[in-house]
């Protein structure tokens, strides 16, 4: 190990972590150019090379690497939360209609098709422009961009580095939700933990918000697939001895490293454009049911990325490549990259829960910079495999139980619902409490689901 491994968590969470977390944190710590430490967040679990919940920064001047496994198959998967201007009381009589309209408006699941088809030129523009491209095309408003990391566009995207297969795979998928742990939820603010920050975020108890959890869809998955394979094959060329093939990586300064960065940034833009289009579709759905609703964007965060950032390391400011694999950036108050609205308090950190438990809004902290390169958790991992969940629950049963609690679930697949049953996931509250206690981010609000659209 070139640097120490640092795992954040309560005693219970750390004890509960699978042994592969320790092994993968250790392997990452062996990679060239790694800075300060190989981190794992409180929700860490077994991933591909990097643990999910892994954070690692590399300096190219020290032979630092970029790793496709350190970003994952769903490039820039993330969460976006929108205000609605409505309260739980406003929404309750309209819940069923909203559930219907939302599931009708946002294609979700295998076999669903996006309604927006881009030609070659537009794909190029989308991969280059991200959410900025989407807004210019009429999906959303300029003000949305202030509330997205990097104002909705990853600089340095190289659309030509994205293979024809990846583009082809995206053709029917613009403005779609995906499946698995992706979701579109209507949520109620059930508790506020920090009044001042909640005020800055515009959140009050009983407010209704909309949260969208999805990523770069087929394009991102194809980029991940191709570069994991290619980087694994190329590793011997760079004298990088991979302790684990999945830790496929390449020097930042290499041709394949640069090509991956160009493609990955295009993937980030695809995810940001996708969440921007879905926002537009959600606004249209609301307009047909509750015309007075005003869906302003609170924030959009990504949790599978590699970003170039400046951090203080050994008394000097260094530009490093920060990988966050299932980890969310957590910028604290005063940071220059924050939108004006959050500069005094820090950025919202949006943590997804399950359709039966809760999600959380946290705020970034200054101390997270030295603790974890300004990173925090992203959501609880699974407590059991999909097969086991399928043996334990029936989709219909899960839907009915949630309905009895006032939560409407819309999904095209009963089996999918069973696999995503709330009990199949770990306790996100414990993860969030640990992140708060460690100083990675602080609790601001708790959100409970009202409507959940799954794919």
């Amino acid at each position, binding site marked *: 190990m070139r640097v120490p491994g640092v795992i954040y968590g309560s005693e219970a969470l750390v004890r509960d972590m*699978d042994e592969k977390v320790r092994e993968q944190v250790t392997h990452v710590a062996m990679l060239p150019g790694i800075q300060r430490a190989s981190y794992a967040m409180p929700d860490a*679990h077994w991933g*591909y090379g990097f643990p999910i919940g892994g954070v690692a920064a590399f300096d190219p001047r020290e032979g630092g690497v970029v790793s496709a496994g350190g970003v994952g198959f769903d490039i820039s998967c993330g969460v976006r939360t929108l205000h609605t201007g409505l309260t739980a009381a406003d929404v309750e009589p309209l819940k069923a209609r909203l559930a219907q309209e939302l599931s009708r408006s946002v294609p979700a*699941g295998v*076999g669903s*098709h996006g309604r927006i088809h881009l030609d070659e030129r537009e794909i190029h523009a989308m991969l280059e422009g991200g959410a900025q491209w989407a807004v210019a095309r009429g999906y959303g408003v300029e003000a949305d961009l202030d509330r997205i990391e990097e104002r909705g566009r990853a600089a340095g995207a190289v659309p030509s580095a994205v293979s024809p297969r990846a583009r082809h*795979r995206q053709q029917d998928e613009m403005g779609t939700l995906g499946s698995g742990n992706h979701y579109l939820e209507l949520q109620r603010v059930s508790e506020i933990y920090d009044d001042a920050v909640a005020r800055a975020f515009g959140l009050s108890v009983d407010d209704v918000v909309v949260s969208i959890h999805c990523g770069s869809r*087929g394009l991102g*998955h194809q980029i991940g697939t191709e570069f994991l394979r290619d980087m694994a094959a190329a590793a011997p060329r760079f004298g990088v001895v991979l302790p684990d093939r999945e830790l496929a990586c390449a020097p930042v300064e290499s041709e394949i490293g640069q090509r991956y960065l160009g493609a990955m940034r295009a993937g980030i833009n695809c995810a940001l454009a996708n969440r921007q289009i879905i926002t537009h579709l959600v606004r249209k759905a609301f307009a047909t049911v509750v015309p007075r609703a005003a869906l302003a964007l609170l924030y959009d965060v990504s949790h599978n990325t590699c970003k170039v950032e400046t951090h203080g390391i050994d008394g000097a400011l260094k530009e490093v490549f920060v990988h966050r694999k299932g980890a969310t950036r957590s910028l604290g108050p005063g940071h220059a990259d924050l939108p004006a609205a959050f500069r005094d308090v820090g950025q919202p950190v949006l943590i997804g829960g399950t359709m039966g438990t809760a999600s959380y809004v946290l705020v970034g902290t200054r101390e997270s910079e030295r603790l974890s390169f300004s990173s925090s958790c992203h959501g609880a*991992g699974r407590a059991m495999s999909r097969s086991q969940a399928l043996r334990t629950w029936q989709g219909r049963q899960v839907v009915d139980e949630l309905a009895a609690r006032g939560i409407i679930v819309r999904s095209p697949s009963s089996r999918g619902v069973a696999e995503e049953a709330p009990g199949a996931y770990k306790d996100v509250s414990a993860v969030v409490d640990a992140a708060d206690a460690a100083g990675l981010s602080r609790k601001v609000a708790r959100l409970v689901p009202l409507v959940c659209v799954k794919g």
Partner: protein
Amino acid sequence: MAHWEHFGHDADIGVVGVGATKAEAFRQAALALTAVMTDPAGVRRLETVPIVCRAATDDLLLLEWLNTLIYEMAVRSVVFGDFEVDIAEGELRAAAHGEPVDVERHEPAVEVKGATFTALEVRQRPDGWRAQCVVDV
């Protein structure tokens, strides 16, 4: 004796194909892949897609095979329910049979994003060939 299996891997799922020959094990692994989404038995043979892929080693060939199927199913919006597979000298030639995804009939549980290096192995054992890896969902 030829069969497919799933095994759990945290957030994702492992696919295993077992057969008397390498090609049969690869065929079974493809059925296991489909089974992540839907029961292969419920997929009709309405269209056929020819597949050719190559790789330097058996395990990389399994990855290529599964990732090609994932790609073809995604871009054609079909699901494959049966296959004929032939492998010779690092080249796999196959026919993948299936039909357009019917959400109501197939109720696809989840989309497969890609096949991974995790638990990737193609091995001949006394009781036959075994081909496996974890797929990201």
